[in-house]
């Protein structure tokens, strides 16, 4: 499996990396985000939204599970933490195959619903501000995209 790794030293740097990624994304792209509480999943998602041209405040979707935003492309922000142990399908297919970009936090809780072609991202805490990000591209397109992002 292809793997790309990058280190960031601050939330700002993590956000800037995500913003750059956001600029490269296209309709129907699905990204998954894994990482502990406080790892920076929402920080990453906010950067991504900025890169997608979303101007509204992007805040945590933990409570409502899915939040939708308008940008250069529609942006679907999901936090499926609360779907642990539940088999519910909240119409994921329509989002994944839709016109927008979907980011799924805590994606392993809906493993069975995820599309095969996706960009899997893991954020690990190194110290208070520093993070290491692992990118696992699950398609040729995402491999190219990762190379472009990290070039």
């Amino acid at each position, binding site marked *: 499996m292809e793997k790309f790794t990058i280190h960031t030293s601050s939330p700002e740097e993590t956000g800037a990396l995500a913003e750059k990624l956001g600029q490269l994304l296209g309709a129907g792209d699905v990204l998954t985000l894994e990482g*502990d*509480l*406080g790892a920076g999943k*929402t*920080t990453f998602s*906010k950067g991504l939204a900025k890169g997608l041209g979303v101007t509204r*405040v992007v*805040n*945590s979707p*933990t*409570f*409502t*599970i*899915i*939040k*939708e935003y308008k940008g250069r492309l529609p942006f679907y922000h999901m936090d499926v*933490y*609360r*779907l*642990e*142990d*539940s*088999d*519910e399908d*909240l119409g994921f297919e329509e989002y994944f195959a839709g016109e927008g970009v979907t980011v799924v936090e805590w994606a392993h809780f809906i493993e069975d619903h995820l599309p095969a072609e996706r960009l899997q991202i893991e954020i690990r805490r190194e110290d*208070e501000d520093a993070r290491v990000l692992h990118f696992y591209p699950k398609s040729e397109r995402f491999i190219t995209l990762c190379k472009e992002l990290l070039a």
Partner: protein
Amino acid sequence: MEKDEIILAIETSCDETAVAIIKNGTEMLANIVASQIESHKRFGGVVPEVASRHHVEQVTVVIEEALVTAGLTMEEITAIAVTEGPGLVGALLIGVNAAKALAFAHDLPLVPVHHIAGHIYANRLVTEMHFPLLALVVSGGHTELVYMKEHGSFEVIGETRDDAAGEAYDKVARTLNMPYPGGPHIDRLAQAGQPSIKLPRAWLEPDSYDFSFSGLKSAVINTVHNAAQRGEELAPEDLAASFQASVVEVLVEKTARAARAYDVKQVLVAGGVAANQGLRSALEARFQNEEVPLVIPPLSLCTDNAAMIGAAGSIAYRKGTRADWALNGVPGLDLEAQ
């Protein structure tokens, strides 16, 4: 004499199946809430599927109970009000469809209500509203300062940029291995502790009424983590008290500042986190020195209920707001577009 306006209101946006009957906008004839918190405890959060199933099982029973409590029949109802959003889509749909069925069967007007407008209007069941006013809305999914220049007009002047206050409570509770819902546990623990641990306050830009609780959440996690690495154990009471002190200080200070800047006649508190003792007493203490009156509804009207939907629904009904049979649950419904 004019005929009384009797609204039957349904609220199923999250984990409470609630039905209320409200007379002339302010008088509660019935206020029934069937909570699901027990069945969600083991999941550490609201599970949408479980929530929807409970709503289906309970909604007709709760409607019946509300009518019996009020001593009324459907023939005496003026209109049906229902929460359109925001909330969990599967949960909202149950209430919306129950409301549509009732309205259709009895040929009654159907009035859609925004959940947060409902929380704010819970205050009208306690005291008359005076405009312009400022509402501090703090709940599981929301932390907002809302300016209202008149009935039915909502301007969000500040909101959270990351976690809602309630979310921050639940996430910190998860870090401290406490059961769901985390808020009441932290509140209780905090009463027994000292705010002795240094945690940040997110003031953001000097002129901003926005909130941010994500940095605080990370700081709590870092503090626990660093203490564990040093082989120390922090008193959970002190950690809870310190966390709560940070949340409360920012909420209270920004509310007081906005109330002055907007020169409001009343400050209302709304939402489930308004049940928090630490927040209530800090707000009361702070507003003792302010000229503007502070209104905090009783606990039973702070958490999700349908009486508040009936109170907001009454205003919307009088303004002529109506939904047709295409009404749907809207998980991300915008308050300002109301």
